[in-house]
């Protein structure tokens, strides 16, 4: 994505104040309370930093950039390092765009792929029923901080993902750690989290690559 576009998005986001301030966080919230807060938090913008520890690779894969969430099912990651790239989840479709071009993948044929990609979005939109239908959820909180330990219910997904630990404070996600069946693991940390955002049509088009039409069925 050209730098000018990224700057434009940042400017627009800065100029668009959060519509709703973060709701008051109860002390030692329950899972239901946290999920309700998340469901009310609307659009999200955050800076992320990710480390993938894969046995195949000589060194961990590191990346950082911005993460955007527009409920119910649009999630975007703008990679700034090591190279510029955009990665968007739009419902059942993943769109990737970098300097070499763009690629689109459909997820609707595979529960596993959908489960992998959707997990963060399900938490961000506070869909507790869906979360529980897909994972066994263990929850603990300490003040306004909380941790969800998720174990996939699906045998197929569990063969890939042993567990996920999602940490947050109030209605903000702070850390996601995914432990894989084969021993690989990934940690994503979020900072500068803003919630309660409402994206304009122009912002949505820029962030979620709406100029790329969905794949033909």
């Amino acid at each position, binding site marked *: 994505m050209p730098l000018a576009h990224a700057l434009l998005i940042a400017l627009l986001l800065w100029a668009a104040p959060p519509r709703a301030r973060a709701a008051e966080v109860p002390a030692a919230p329950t899972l239901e309370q946290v999920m309700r807060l998340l469901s009310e938090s609307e659009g999200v913008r955050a800076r992320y930093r990710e480390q993938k520890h*894969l046995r195949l690779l000589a060194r961990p894969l590191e*990346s950082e950039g911005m993460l955007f969430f527009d409920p119910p099912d649009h999630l975007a990651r703008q990679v700034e390092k090591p190279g510029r790239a955009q990665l968007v*989840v739009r419902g059942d479709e*993943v769109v990737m765009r970098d300097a070499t071009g763009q690629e689109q993948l*459909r997820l*609707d044929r595979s529960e*596993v792929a959908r489960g*992998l990609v959707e997990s963060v979005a399900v938490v961000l939109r506070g869909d507790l029923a869906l979360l529980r239908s897909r994972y066994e959820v263990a929850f603990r909180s300490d003040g306004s901080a909380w941790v969800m330990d998720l174990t996939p219910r699906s045998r197929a997904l569990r063969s890939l993902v042993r567990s996920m630990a999602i940490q947050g404070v109030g209605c903000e996600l702070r850390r996601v750690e995914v432990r*894989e069946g084969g021993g690989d693991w990934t940690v994503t940390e979020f900072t500068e989290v803003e919630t309660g955002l409402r994206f304009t049509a122009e912002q949505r088009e820029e962030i979620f690559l709406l100029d790329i039409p969905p794949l033909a069925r």
Partner: protein
Amino acid sequence: MNEALVRAATLVLLAGLLAMCALRLEVTSSITHFLPSGDESELAGLSRRLVESDLSRTMVLRIRGDGDRRAAAEALAASLRKHPEVAWVQGGASESFAEALFHLYFPRRVYLASEDPERGIPRMLEPEGLQRRAETLRSRLAGPTSLLFTRHAPADPLGLFAALVERAREAEPMAVQEDAAFVFVRTRASPFDSSRQAPVLEAIEAAFHQVAAEHGPGLALEQSGVNRFAVASERSIRRDANFISIVSVLGVGALFLAFFRSVRSLVLVLIPTTLGIAVATAVASEAFAPVHGLTLGFGLALIGVTIDYPIHVINHHAFAEGATPRTTVARLRRSLLMGGGTTALAFGVLALSDFPGVDDMGAFAAIGVLAALGATLISLPAFMPREGRALSSGFQRAAAAALARGARWLARHRGVAAALPVLFAAIAAVGLPQVRWEDDPAALSTPDPILVEEDRRVRAGAFGVDMDRLVVALAPSPEAALALNDRVHGRLEEAVAAGHLGGIQSLHALLWSEELQRRNLEALRSVQDLDARIDTAYTQGGFRAGAFEAFGEAVRHPQAPPLRPDDLADSPLGRLLEAALVPLGDDWAVITYLREVRSKEGIREALAGLDGAHFFDRDALLREIFAGYRLSTLRLVALGAVLIFATLLVCYRRLRAALLVLLPSALVPLTTLGLLGMLGIPVNLLAVVSLILVMGMGVDYGVFALECSRDPRRMAPTMLSLLVCCLTTIFVFGTLALSEHPALRSIGLTTGIGISLAFLVSPAVLALAGEGDV
């Protein structure tokens, strides 16, 4: 002759025949009986195979609207699985497809690397190519679906399995889409078996109502399936036929009451025809089993012409003073034998047809006519009252007298009589060139446009392919057909690139010939430093040294033999294989489905030079088949006319007599066609088959008209009989012209016009023959 014994024997015979029919008759509704059986019909054979294949028995159900569509699809599928008429159901998202792909393809990825292995694999393994693949893998590992790749990457650094999955997914209709969920249902019965399909359709509706109540009242069900059209068409025709039957029965009843003042006459005329039908059906149930419904239906209609024989006998007996029924029949024997024999000959000629359904129909009708003729000569007199007066009425006598006067007037004015056939010939001459032949079978039915649109929408959503235009690779064995399909696929990809079509759905996405698979393995093995090349390129890309050794091992010692059709058949992909690899006589066909056909010619050109590769355009093929059917039937009608003429010549030994008798049967079909041409009414094959009926009755009219010229006393009852026969036929067949269905309407119009013309020309035959002249 002991009449009581004849009556008893007739009734016992009839009961025995009906019992035999009830026990032995097997009826089919497969359209394949009406496809040609000759050697030239390779594609017609394929069409037959397609009609009989699981494709036509598969329904697609689409669930849309507000609610949990996925859960609703799964619940609907679970409910339908329990139905005894449902052979197979697939619904909702399924992990079995992904698992099947992995188990089938991952161990065989080394066989399926490149469609052009001798060039593609070395190119793939060049340093630049490998570096690109390392970058791609690294970028995939950085993405949100990285887990899907880390599982297989150590044994598949080239991404061969990922490419296979991509291809395979394009071949599989999606069970769940963003706005809809699909359920695929295969029924056990033929889609044309309405009696078994109707309960399935009702069960689907009932199950969906239950599912919607549970998963969302805002959900809506859309369906697609050949069976829906068959059931709807049968119901509609049944409604139409019921109405027409009532009109017809009332008309015939009124006719008999008006002329004979008795229901007894009506029962009498039905005896020979009923026996004829029973004999023909019993023979058919043994000789042609299974008998096609259309063969039976049309055959019965053709045998219906025999109702004329008892009408002649009854009328003549009513006018015969002091004669017994047997002496009346004896007087008419020559006419009856001539009429029945020539009619049987006209119908029997159809047995020479290349179409199995038509040749059965010809034989069936000929047997029925001969049996009814026999019953008229032997059984009918035993059921008739001894006194002819018991069968007569004042109206009958008055009508007969008026008709006889008219015929005599015509006999005195031969010029007028001669003008009638001349006028007929003129109509034929003017109208025949204007005839518009309608060979599109679709024109024979008027499917509900709402059903048509729903069907199109659902199929397009599920498959996205044109089900009526296919490319077929034909070869003597599955392996040879797959090898040909490998080449067809390449050509069609070029055609897609050239814009001749939007895309293809090919078995090639799932299965290559064994020969091509082995060439892939050989090409990989021929790279001596395979492990080192991969290691060098991937370590440069940030991967650990030796991380991909499993791939080299898989090339040296493949984990499975090449993929064969049987491997797919036993997997969840088997349904796709069944739809694409089909036995066809001694050959095998691989079918490629097409999307958005833009240039048929372009596709044909793309396949040029590939022996055994055919572009199959079902609509065009059916039009060709029906045109062939029409032409062949017309030729048989002409042959029938020639044979009838030869028979008449032998019997009468005079050219003029033979020509006169032939007049209604030879001229009237041509005049009927001419009239239809002048009126701009399209002529289809059902109209042509109806012309055979007209010809069969026309020859009878000619025979009886000529025979009565020898005996003036027979003129009144003969002319009355011809009128009653004509009106009966119009009430029985002509009323079909009232139908909303083009097929039935066509039969009704042709028969109604033809029989009326045959009746009109009969007095001319009589007049031109002259009393005692022949």
